[in-house]
């Protein structure tokens, strides 16, 4: 069984070579179909509700928001809105809608649909996990609290114009308008299907759902009336559901499928990467993810910044990256490299156990101390925690590992005096949208340092909160770069207080068949997994 891959790849490689020899008939890359496999059922395709990495990108293929991203990048561009104006003070956004955008049912999309969709997400009855993202819209509190049944901040000026007033300036608002939770849905279809709308999605998107057999497969067909020229490229996407990742890999090697949606199974990762024929079909890219160790600044001895800095210097990140087969890159700051604002020049705390020991002694712990390290009990997290444990032992810190179910670790982190240290792996943090502020508020700001919150180091620095608010008030899109720099500075300054020891940033590895193309960036798209369905192509279109 150990040699399955080695022996089967010869056949697969032959198939690939034959496919490559076939002439590429469609120069513009339009047409063709692909097959993508997943293990788990697609839970829902309702944009207000779907919030897992599998359905999130599928929903992006079926629906659109006012804003959109340049394919393969984190750069915003207008979507259903053709253009927008922002008031001087950054609190009023006026969106001018495109002409001729139609829902899959043929009806033209209007400003009323935009208002309806935003209000539907905020409406407590919808139970949307993303309602909070719309929190800066004026009237949000009243509507989510149940005292109002519409958003006072959303005004339909005319069928082609929506004016959205915010209760505070919010530079992330355009990103939020590109998030699934603000995608536009047709009221009549939502009312027709009720709670089952998620299984009968109707949007304006590049594809439309034409078939869904529960537990077996879904078919997305090209929307010929899609508003954006030249998209989508494919005629059809077939999703096959219920396939173990390892079986998907076998089928991939057999040339039966184009993309194993769940990726390369961890147990086969080294084998795939050591196989030259397979490796060239793997696209590697960054993820908006950071794995870190939190240190609870409210619990001794981590209330001493020197102790926290010492921990930062004690962890051998390169070795931990090896433990997970190089599926990540070492990190030195909270932001991942793929995030705007990441400071390339920042050096962080280099691995230096001697200096760490000295710092510990200076802090009054020449012989170290005993503490606890909490970790989710799913492989490889406990193994990573053990490596951290060894590194800490080398400078005298005896950390006992508390390996618990994920939900229990999250609960311990959300309590003020439970978890001195937590390894965040498997739980936190991946950004919802490519904006640095998404890495601050919930996990490093005062707002998250509350019972049940995600700021597990309980770090609350009023000065940083002020700087964060100032950065988010820089609403002018022309100042985006400047704003990103300000954010970068906030994060590197936070590292002086060292509430975290950033350990690594996970990388993405997308495996795709040789017949697929469109540009590597589409397969590591920062806002789509496993790929940007709208722009990928196949090269053997007849």
């Amino acid at each position, binding site marked *: *069984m150990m040699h*399955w891959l080695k022996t*089967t790849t010869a056949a697969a490689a032959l198939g690939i070579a034959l496919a490559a020899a076939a002439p590429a008939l469609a120069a513009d890359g339009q047409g063709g179909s692909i097959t993508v496999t997943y*293990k*788990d*059922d697609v*839970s*829902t395709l*309702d944009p207000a*509700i779907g*919030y897992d990495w599998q359905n999130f990108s599928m929903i992006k293929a079926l629906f659109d928001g006012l804003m959109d991203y340049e394919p393969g990048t984190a750069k915003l561009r207008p979507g259903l809105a053709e253009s927008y104006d922002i008031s001087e003070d950054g609190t009023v956004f006026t969106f001018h809608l495109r002409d001729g955008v139609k829902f899959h049912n043929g009806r033209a999309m209007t400003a009323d649909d935009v208002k309806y969709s935003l209000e539907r997400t905020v409406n*407590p*009855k919808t*139970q*949307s*996990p*993303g*309602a*909070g*993202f719309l*929190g800066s819209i004026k009237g949000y509190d009243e509507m*989510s*609290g149940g005292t109002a049944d519409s958003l006072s901040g959303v005004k339909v000026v005319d069928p082609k114009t929506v004016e959205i007033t915010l209760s505070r300036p919010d530079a992330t608002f355009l990103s939020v308008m590109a998030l699934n939770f603000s995608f536009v849905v047709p009221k009549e279809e939502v009312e027709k299907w009720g*709670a*089952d709308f*998620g*299984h009968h999605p109707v949007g304006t998107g590049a594809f439309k759902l034409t078939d869904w*057999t*529960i*537990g*077996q497969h879904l078919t997305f067909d090209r929307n010929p009336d899609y508003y954006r020229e030249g998209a989508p490229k494919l005629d059809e996407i077939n999703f*096959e*559901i*219920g*396939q*173990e990742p*390892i*079986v998907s890999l*076998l*089928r991939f090697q*057999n040339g*039966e499928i184009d993309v194993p949606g769940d990726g390369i199974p961890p147990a086969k990762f080294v084998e795939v990467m050591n196989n030259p024929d397979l490796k060239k079909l793997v696209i590697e890219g960054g993820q908006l993810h950071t794995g870190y160790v939190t240190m609870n600044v409210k619990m001794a001895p981590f209330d001493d910044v020197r102790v926290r800095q010492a921990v930062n210097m004690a962890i051998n990140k390169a070795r931990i990256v090896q433990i997970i087969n190089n599926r990540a890159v070492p990190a030195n700051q909270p932001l991942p490299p793929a995030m705007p604002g990441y400071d390339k020049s920042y050096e962080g705390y280099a691995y230096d156990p001697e200096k760490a020991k000295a710092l510990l002694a200076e802090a009054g712990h020449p012989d170290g101390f005993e503490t606890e390290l909490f970790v989710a009990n799913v492989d490889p997290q406990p193994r990573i925690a053990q490596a951290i444990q060894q590194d800490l032992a080398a400078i005298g810190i005896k950390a006992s590992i508390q390996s618990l*179910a*994920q*939900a*229990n670790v*999250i*609960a311990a982190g959300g309590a003020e005096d439970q978890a001195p240290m937590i390894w965040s792996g498997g739980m*936190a943090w991946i950004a*919802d949208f490519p904006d640095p502020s998404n890495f601050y508020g*919930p996990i490093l700001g005062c707002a998250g340092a*509350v019972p*049940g919150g*995600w700021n597990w180091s309980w770090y609350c620095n009023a000065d940083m909160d002020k700087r964060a608010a100032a950065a988010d008030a820089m609403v002018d899109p022309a100042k985006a770069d400047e704003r990103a720099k300000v954010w970068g500075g906030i994060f590197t300054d936070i590292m002086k207080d060292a509430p975290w020891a950033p350990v690594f940033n996970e990388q993405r590895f997308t495996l795709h068949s040789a017949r697929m193309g469109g540009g590597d960036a589409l397969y590591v798209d920062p806002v789509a997994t496993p790929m940007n369905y709208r722009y990928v192509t196949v090269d053997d279109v007849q």
Partner: protein
Amino acid sequence: MLGYLARRLVQAVLILLGVSVVTFALLYLLPADPVRQIAGRSATAQTVENIRRQLGLDQPFLVQYGRYLLGLVQGDLGRSYLQRSEVSDLIAARLPASLLLMAGAIVCELAIGLTMGLVAAVKRGSATDQTLMVGSFVTVSAPQFVVGLLLLYVFAVRLGWFPIGGYGTFRHLVLPSLTLGILGAGWYSRMMRSSMIDVLRQDYIRTARAKGLPRLTVLLRHALPNALLPVIAMIGIDIGLFMSGIVVVESVYGWPGIGQLAWQAIQRIDIPIIMGVTLVSACAIVLGNLLADIVSPFIDPRIRLR
């Protein structure tokens, strides 16, 4: 007979009630919070509480269970937390696939198990017998995940005789049925062997042989029907075994049955689905046992139901 049936049905209802209480209580006691799963990590505390209230998960255990039971007697299994569809629809969409797989598995285990047992009994004490019995021991002990992947690799990937997982045609059915059935085949071969050996020792077999009947006729006409009796009763009990097996086998082969549904629901604490699948499985087990008992007197007139 009717009195017997009525009594058994009342028992069945009590068993199902017991299963529902125990499962519901276990899910209630889970430290993980289903509302957090639904709300996602970006939800505000307000959203979390709002969802908890709407689903009634802020109520005490008895109220929650009472509500569930009330729905249940009206035939309402509730709505999945994460898929947001009716649990009964989800189960109905997947149950036929599971039943088909079980039917296939029963055919496989009977065909393999009975043949092995019969041959072993006739060749009792020989090398064939010993090989077969060691073989049965291996099939009973082999983990289904491994057997499944092994069969898949050899017969689908290498030899290409069958598709690599999936659902739809007879060819798709063979490997999953075999994987699921091979476990039971081991049991059946051992039962069949000992049952057959018992029967072959009986006087009437000797009489039949003494009459000059051919050996094969004696085996198939006289010995087999009697030896089969205790084995038939096993099939009903088997369904319980299958219910645990399908979770693994359906995963390996991408078979769209309720086993996969249960597995996904457990990982995401989707309580209504877990409850629904558990109750449907319990129903199947109870019915299987009942059927085995009802059928027995028809096969063996010596058995009376009272």
